[in-house]
């Protein structure tokens, strides 16, 4: 977020470029735009009616050669009243049109950005903080919407107002028009400076808001720690500092805004004084009428409000443009893992896996996470992949499921290169259960059904029974109808994983990849579950990234990954007696799970 703002301050000129890019990405926005513009012209034209009416009343009504011409005044007022009403209707129509088009366009932008985030590869998704991705489709777009509903209309009308007022002035008297413009020129120049100043002070405010959020978070998320260590006073002091700093920055920003706001007022007063002095002199020379002079005093007020509007809107506008740019940046990010154009379907039946000289690095130039892996896994086998943290096990799983594409070499599933398989076919037949099996805020059944829409509750209950989880399900207050809470928080981490495994199980894939899918499940339940999976997965290919070697002991084959290479391969009982990393890993695991009697003594 802060990088986006810095960029704004560094290249303020690209606001127009952003707008052009944005219009390209929001086709809805262009619909009916000419009519809206026509309405906006009428809307601004209506604003000069009153000064003209005043001038006409003074000069031609009251100052008529044969004494006051009251019928003329009546006719004039009636005509102007009609114009005011018509203007009002035009403004209403314009507003509604503008709101409808912009909101439709923004909704489209929101949905496209949302879809795009899902289309980005896991690498991109993980490279950004989740919260910032959410902001792209929420607060950034909200800010644009708020700005369009308020500042956008105001800005548009203000600009039109300036133009129309200038034209009317020029028709009345070019000398006085020149005078007014001379008075306002310094302000027009200063606006740029004001904009920078406002961006600066509000930038600080935003930063401080972040500090307050973080400090408040400590009192909520850190509540147990604060209590256990008796540091209430210290935490309160930290929060207090953050709040005070935010307060001070806000007051400073308010000072700047006030200064910008009154600058318009001051210039208007100078202009008024100048109009009176110069106008009277011009009038004596017979160049302008008294009514014209007074009309100018009215017209100057039309110059003030745009400046004041600008002081309120500028900051919002900068925020909105910065947010807009961030949304467009997301849309501009090319998904590096794409659904192939004419995707193939995977052959029916069990699937085998082949890695052909596969190399993968998370960033160009970085040490590869996998180096030249070349192997084949036969269909219907259960393979465990083991290795230390950071050895490349998970990378293996992500390449098989095409969450990422290899840097070199290729991956084949069922004999087809995975990057040629249509996503629809790949995701149906190859399913991975990640370590953090995220649950939606719905019932257990709904979460399991997510893997295969249309399953009945009875079928889902049956699936839990098949997985040996019937007892666990029975312990829930409402069985499969039990709500899991936000992010599944009503369940423990282990219970969440059980639901995630069930979800993948009902999807009935031909290739199942388990990435430490049961790491938080208590040992007894985990063993029951893996035994059930063993029997149920016979007939399909299973790849298990194992953190506990109990899985490896039961697998048909074990792949030992070390520093990005497959260093050992074979059955557990062969490997455990062989010289090599597996024997070491296994010994260490035996110690930590307490299986050697010596450590107990």
């Amino acid at each position, binding site marked *: 977020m802060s990088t986006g703002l810095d960029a704004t301050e560094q290249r303020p000129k690209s606001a127009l470029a952003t707008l052009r890019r944005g219009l390209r990405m929001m086709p809805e926005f262009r619909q009916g735009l000419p009519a809206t513009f026509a309405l906006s012209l009428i*809307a601004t034209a209506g604003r000069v009616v*009153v000064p003209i009416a005043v001038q006409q009343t003074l000069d031609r009504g*009251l100052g008529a050669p044969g004494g*006051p011409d009251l019928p003329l005044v009546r006719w004039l007022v009636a005509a102007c009243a009609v114009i*005011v009403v018509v203007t009002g209707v035009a403004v*209403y129509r314009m507003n*509604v049109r503008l*709101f*409808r088009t912009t909101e439709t366009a*923004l*909704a489209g932008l929101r949905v496209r950005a*949302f879809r795009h*985030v*899902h289309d980005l590869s*896991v690498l991109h*998704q993980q490279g950004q903080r989740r919260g910032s991705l*959410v902001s792209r489709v929420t607060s950034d777009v909200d800010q644009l919407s708020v700005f369009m*509903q308020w500042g956008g209309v105001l800005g548009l009308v203000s600009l039109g107002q300036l133009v129309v007022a200038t034209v009317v002035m020029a028709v009345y008297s070019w000398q006085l028009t020149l005078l007014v413009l001379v008075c306002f020129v310094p302000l027009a120049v200063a606006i740029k400076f004001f904009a920078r100043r406002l961006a600066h002070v509000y930038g600080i405010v935003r930063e401080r808001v972040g500090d307050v*959020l973080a400090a*408040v*978070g400590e*009192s*909520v*998320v*850190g509540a*147990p*720690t*604060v209590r256990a260590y*008796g*540091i*209430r006073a*210290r935490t*309160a002091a930290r929060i207090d500092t953050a*709040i005070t700093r935010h307060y001070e920055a806000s007051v400073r920003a*308010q000072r700047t805004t*006030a200064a910008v706001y*009154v600058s318009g007022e001051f210039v208007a*007063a100078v202009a*008024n004084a*100048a109009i*009176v002095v110069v*106008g009277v*002199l011009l009038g*004596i020379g017979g160049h302008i009428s008294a009514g014209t*002079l*007074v009309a100018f005093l009215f017209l100057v007020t039309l110059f003030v409000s745009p400046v004041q509007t600008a002081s309120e809107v500028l900051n919002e506008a900068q925020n909105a443009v910065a947010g807009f740019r961030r949304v467009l940046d997301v849309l501009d990010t090319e998904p590096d893992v794409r659904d192939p154009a004419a995707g193939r379907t995977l052959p029916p039946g069990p699937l085998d896996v082949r890695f052909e000289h596969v190399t993968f690095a998370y960033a160009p130039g970085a040490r590869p996470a996998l180096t030249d892996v070349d192997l084949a896994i036969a269909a219907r086998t259960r393979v465990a992949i083991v290795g230390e943290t950071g050895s490349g096990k998970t990378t293996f799983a992500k390449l098989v*499921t095409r*969450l990422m594409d290899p840097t070199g070499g290729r991956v084949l599933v069922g004999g087809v290169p995975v990057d040629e398989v249509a*996503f629809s076919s790949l995701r149906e037949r190859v399913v991975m259960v990640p370590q953090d099996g995220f649950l939606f*805020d719905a019932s257990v059944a709904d979460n399991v059904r*997510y893997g295969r829409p249309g399953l009945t509750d009875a079928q889902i209950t049956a699936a839990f029974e098949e997985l040996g989880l019937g007892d666990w399900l029975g312990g829930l207050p409402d069985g499969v109808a039990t709500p899991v809470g936000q992010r599944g*928080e009503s*369940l423990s981490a282990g219970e969440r994983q059980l639901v995630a495994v069930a*979800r*993948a199980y009902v999807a009935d894939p031909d290739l199942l990849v388990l990435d430490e899918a049961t790491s938080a*499940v208590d040992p007894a339940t*985990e*063993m029951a579950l893996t035994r059930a999976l063993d029997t149920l997965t016979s007939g399909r290919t299973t790849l298990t990234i194992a953190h506990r070697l109990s899985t490896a002991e039961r697998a048909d084959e074990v792949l030992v990954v070390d520093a990005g290479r497959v260093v050992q391969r074979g059955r557990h009982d062969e490997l455990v007696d062989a010289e090599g990393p597996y024997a070491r890993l296994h010994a260490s695991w035996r110690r*930590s799970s307490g299986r050697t009697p010596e*450590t107990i003594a």
Partner: protein
Amino acid sequence: MSRRRTPDPAAGTRPSAPDERKDVVRRGLRHVARSIREQPGIFTWAVLGSSLYGGMTVASAYVVGGVTDRVVLPAYDDGDTSAAALTLAALVIMAVAVLKIVGIIGRRLFAGIMSYRLQADYRRRVTGQYLRLPLSWHQRHPTGQLLSNANSDVESAWYFVSPLPFAVGALVMIGITVAALLLTDPLLAVVGFVVFPLVFVINAVYSQVMSPRMARAQQLRAEVSEIAHESFDAALVVKTLGREQSETDRFAERAYELRDGLVAVGRVRGLFDPLMEALPNLGTLAVLLVGAERVAGGATDAGELVSIAYLFTLLALPIRAIGWVLADLPRALAGFDRVAPVLAATGETPHGPDAAPAGTGGAALAVDDLTFGYDGVARPTLEGVTFDVAPGRTLAVVGPTGSGKSTLAGLLVRLVDPSTGQVLLDGVDLRTLREGEVSTQAAFVPQGTFLFDDTVRGNVTLGGPWDDDEVWAALRTAAADDFVSRLPEGLDTRVGERGASLSGGQRQRLALARAVVRRPRLLVLDDATSAVDPAVEARILDALRAGDHPVTVVVVAYRQATIALADEVVWIDRGRLVARGIHAELLAQVPGYARLVQAYQPPEDSPTALQEVPA
């Protein structure tokens, strides 16, 4: 400990039900009065500024009229003017403008200060409550709700204060205008009596019509945001199951609903804005119509006509400030209604008068018939748990997921108080100790490690009086000295929000060092070493228990390696202490215990399996 939260039934209810809507204006005005009561001084200054601005706005209109009458028209009629008259006119215009500017600055600055002060004040009060209220209160409220209570809810509760003095100033201005109109010409005053009440009526109708629409838009915004949060958090699941399209459909449905909601808001505002603009304009025209007749009839003069026409033009903006305040009140009330329960919440943990018994080395811990239940949950989480730990001994608490182990750990250091029974430290009930005394005796390392956005040093000392040598010693004991010395700035390295720059194991070891540096007499570890290598874990515990005065340790654990380090084990199942003894005894006597800790044993290793093998 944070599991099974019961959602707060008060959360999410909004005061927008139709029968309550009539109430909005009355309750809103009471809320306005509350803001004034809280900051009377600043409010007075702001209103003074605003009134100065209002008075000068009216004055400027009369200056324009006066200048027209006394300088412009005579000069045009006579074809001559004096330098003195022109200078005076210019000076008066400037003087009024400068006073008006002073008024504007005063109004804006003091209004801003008032609004920010109220926000800062309420943030302090809300977070003060967060720190004061017991952990059990926290467990009943979702984290997200508490965060938004302190931030966005407080902000929306007082946002209307910014235009409030402006609105009050506008009232003053209208009062002055009506008086001036009456003095100038009673017939012209009639125009004012029609226009101004109409402005109020339209504003009132506007806020009535707007408030439910705003509430609905806000609600939809929150729903859109919820879906985005959930869906992006679930990105991996969505991808691996190929559900991108259905997620997009789900999001699009709500996004277009929000679009409709915002267009509905826009339709009302789109009508309101031109109405508020047209009204003063029509007023000016009416003034011209009536005024021209009066001037022709000799009842008033052209200058006064110009003054009043100009005044109507100038009044257009301030009058709208009244609308801003009224329109924002529903949102303010909704925000305040969410903050108020936090401020009203009671249940501060009561503390006794006693100091903890002094002593070096391990403390004696006794748990006596402890029962604990979470609110709204029928079955108590812990029931009748009794055990004791002799000074310097290590006890492992073992049990299946959800058996109440973490709750027990929290009770030992008085994060929560038991429903019945007591926890005794050296024979003294924790509840009789002064505030802060428990933490001088006992250190607790929770399951989920929490680090502050501070330096490594700050996270270890938490502001306590330990010097760098002691910090390094603690880091060494916690096996964290290696990675800390490799950090770019050593002890001064900032760990980022929640320790984001460190790995899980590193965070756990820092949290351990935090406990160790305090040389506690009782150390409670709630599965706090799960990401630490078993050998390192053994070294850490050995260091703590070494010497003449070993620390008393209670450790919640799954790993057999951890359990093996304990002198004794208690087995907890469904909130009850089922068995107690040394590891080998429990293994032999308690089937559930054996099943849990030996789950990884391949069948051929386990005693039961051995019996099944045919001889």
